[in-house]
């Protein structure tokens, strides 16, 4: 699990992650918000359905792809959280299907 060092700053916003409301800090990337909210898998792969999670946090690996406000395949590590944001992980429970 990840945790924060500082006292939670007063600048927080609420976002929704897979229909769960969480409070996160202004300045967090969506990927950081996901990891700090206990999400361990952010997507499954199209090829084998293997679980993946943010790896580089700097826009290089594309492991952090999630759906943000209805737009699929956004790099969670490159987008900052915003009030009311709706984030969905991209986990396919039936891998192997062609999507």
């Amino acid at each position, binding site marked *: 699990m990840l*945790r924060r*060092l500082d006292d939670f700053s007063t600048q927080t916003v609420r976002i929704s992650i897979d229909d769960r409301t969480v409070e996160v800090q202004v300045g967090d990337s969506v990927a950081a918000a996901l990891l700090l909210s206990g999400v361990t*898998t952010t997507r499954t792969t199209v090829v084998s359905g293997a679980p993946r*999670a*943010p*790896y580089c946090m700097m826009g290089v690996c594309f492991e952090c792809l999630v759906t943000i406000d209805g737009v699929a395949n956004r790099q969670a590590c490159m987008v900052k959280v915003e009030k009311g944001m709706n984030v969905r992980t991209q986990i396919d429970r039936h891998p192997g299907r062609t999507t």
Partner: protein
Amino acid sequence: MISLQSLMNLDDRYELIVIGAGPAGMAAAIEATRNGVKTLVLDENGAIGGQIYRSITTATPKRLAVLGKDYAGGAELARTFTESGAAYLAKATVWRLTADRELGVSHDGMAKLITGERVLVATGALERPFPIAGWTLPGVMTAGAAQILLKASGAVMGPKMVLAGSGPLLWLLASQYLAADVPLLAILDTTPRKNVLRAIPHLPGFMASPYFRKGLGLVTKVRRAVRVYKNVDKLRAEGSERVERVRFSASGKEHSLELDHLLLHHGVVPEMNLLRSVGCEMAWDEEQICWHPIASAGGETSIPGIYVAGDGRAIYGAELARFGGRRAALEISKSLGAIDGAAFEHLCAQLEQESRPFIRGRFFLDRMFRPRREHLTPAHDALVCRCEEVLGSTLHDTIFRLKVLGPNQLKAFLRSGMGPCQGRQCSLSVTQTIAKLRGVSPEDVGAYRIRPPVKPITVGQIANLQTRHKRGLECLQ
């Protein structure tokens, strides 16, 4: 600094466009604007600082204390940049660059094309790929990723965390975690023992450099507090839904540790995709085991008017990135007639003298932390291409059976390098595997060809370009 809010605020032309607001880009913009050059700085991050000084302008006292003096030292550079006359747009991603120095920039769902009479690429470095079995499991991340979480969110991992690999950044991260009172389970030091011998000729230069005392103090402090396994190889991460343990051998003995986070690192390498996409010539550097863009002393690449500075040129660290950025800005200022020859000569000589001790220190670091050879190419049961899930064994077999000569040919067989990361995670490993199997140098093997867009851009952004410039789709060709 003129802080711009949207693409609408961008002019169509600037004398200088700097891509990247890290130490190299900021130092360059400061020097260029001082000489009266009309300068724009673009960075895809939400704030200035680059990698080393990420979030420096918003760091809390607690974070400053944990991250250490080098980090805090960036505040002054950031302040000088803020006080400079440069225009700056945050969250602006450059996804395309042409030999005519036209840039495709995206920001907040929109895209725009602008031109620089000169362009400075100061896009920094990325982590060297570390293709071990299990490196795709959730819970395995890079040390750089842990640093980003620490700097931008004040977040730390635990309780059972292991660092594995080699290089100054690994020890820096360990010391930052210790300063934050976060325990580390172990450090698995993969530095090969023989590196010491290879590095010794450069020891005097290192001892005379500012890195010596800093580095020694840091490593000593960490060693005292954390269990360090030396001479580690045969690393593999294991687990089902996420990483549960790491197996390795240390000085010939097998070990296994249960953990919940594994952080990998064996150095950083220049991020080359933008320069590759515009056709800059590259050379293989066997000391740093990576490609470098070919550039003049002042940073001009093989394409006139396009310059490169900082870790995107060669891995020399933050201080030299600053010198390099300033040096390139001087060259650019001179070429635009913004400073005269005498002032140029004088300032260049001064810069060279100031940077010399740092340069001498770097040779030692390169040799001392040279990655273990077997970690540069994938093991048989490790995925080399994370996107297309290509195993090391498949890579080996394909190269061998089909007598593959280079990475671009391989794309057709395995799709490696064709996924969303555009080869950033496999290009170096693939080149080195082909070179190894063919018994030639990576220089002879080459690298993936890179085409724009080098960063993701949506259909909507292209469509929007189409209406405004009547040739949006051409940008992708």
